[in-house]
């Protein structure tokens, strides 16, 4: 666990307090860690599990994952902090590229593509590049990742956080995964589908303010494009 992650986690704990029930019974995150406690403002959210967000400086020389993502996408020399997210069903990196768009690299457990390329050191199952129009993505840039075992797909997409939104919550049946907005970047969210074959995905999205007020609830319908 990096010192920077500890700093982020500490900030969450000190700034918002922690919920005693957050994370109980929650699935582990993709890398095996337990979900951090929920912020106090979201303590009453049923079935919620906090995801980890880690914000790192631009192009740190020791940032192996950030570097591998930069190498993967040609326009992708970063010019913003690198935001790495760790959720139960997937992990991702997002940053703003020198070209002005945003770049994502996505990861699941047992990536099919990686398993077919044993010589490849990249952990990523896919990635996306999104153009920004007045600072906003027009398309969530759905990325579908297939596990090597032929199981259900995992869908990744960006959410444009509106002003005043502190947390994005993705509902998935009885569970909710909580993503904190970070570094002024679109929030890369993930959801495991039931299907093993798909070219679209829907996300049930809730947006919350810092005081825990639910600002908006909607379904984001996404389709593979570009």
């Amino acid at each position, binding site marked *: 666990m990096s010192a920077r992650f500890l700093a982020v986690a500490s900030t969450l704990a000190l700034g918002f307090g922690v919920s005693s029930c957050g994370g109980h019974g929650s699935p582990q995150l993709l890398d095996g860690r337990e979900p951090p406690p929920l912020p106090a403002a979201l303590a009453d959210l049923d079935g919620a599990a906090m995801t980890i967000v880690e914000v790192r400086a631009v192009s740190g020389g020791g940032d192996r994952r950030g570097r591998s993502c930069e190498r993967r996408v040609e326009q992708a020399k970063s010019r913003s902090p690198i935001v790495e997210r760790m959720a139960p069903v997937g992990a991702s990196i997002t940053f703003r590229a020198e070209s002005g768009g945003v770049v994502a690299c996505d990861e699941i457990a047992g990536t099919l593509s990686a398993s*077919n390329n044993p010589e490849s050191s990249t952990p990523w199952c896919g990635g996306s*590049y999104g153009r920004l129009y007045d600072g906003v993505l027009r398309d969530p840039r759905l990325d579908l990742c297939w596990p090597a075992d032929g199981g259900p797909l995992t869908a990744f997409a960006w959410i444009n956080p509106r002003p005043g939104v502190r947390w994005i919550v993705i509902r998935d049946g009885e569970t909710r995964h909580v993503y904190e907005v970070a570094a002024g970047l679109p929030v890369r969210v993930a959801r495991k589908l039931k299907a093993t074959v798909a070219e679209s995905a829907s996300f049930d999205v809730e947006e919350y303010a810092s005081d825990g007020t639910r600002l908006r609830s909607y379904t984001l319908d996404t389709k593979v494009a570009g």
Partner: protein
Amino acid sequence: MIGSISLRLAPGVLAGLALAVAIVTPGARAYHTNFQGSCNNDSFSTSGVTRSQARIYAEIGAYEGYQWGGGCWNDNNVDDAPGDPTENGSTRGEGGDCSGFTFKSWYERVSTGDAGFTYHYRMRNIHGPYTADKFKAANLVAHGPVSKSATTTMDAFASSTHVGMIYQANTAYNTDRIVEAKCEACGTGIWSRTYRGDPSYGGARRFGWAG
């Protein structure tokens, strides 16, 4: 009398003005044509597909327009829904985008574990599960990376943001004629490109051609 004539003419004059504005304003004419409203979901499984057949399929799709996330087109060599906003799949215009055009031209199937061939009718509105990135990086049962030097007709060059198929290989140094869905403004067509010499592009191949 003059007043009553004016009143009778007014609707016609207004209609004429509206028509004139529509004609000289491409955006107003083009946006939200709902071309996809006339598309279908027709396809059939097939086998023994050759690169030459795929090339003809792509050739017919050329000049039919570009639609972000789209997947259906006719064969009148006109973009029937030009000028839509970019990266907006809800505009429902004619044509595929780069990855959807490649998916259909390669007779691919939506299941990533299925290397079989499917003929998608031109008017079938399907994009497929792959972004351009998946043509560049993913090594799947139906397609995967190939060295650029080995590429030939109807292989592809793919970057993280674009994919185009080789219509005619090696027409000049590091140059090929590429059939591709390029952008909303430039449409789908066949152009000389230097993707072969561009390090951001890699070679990609559909597996299982019959010849």
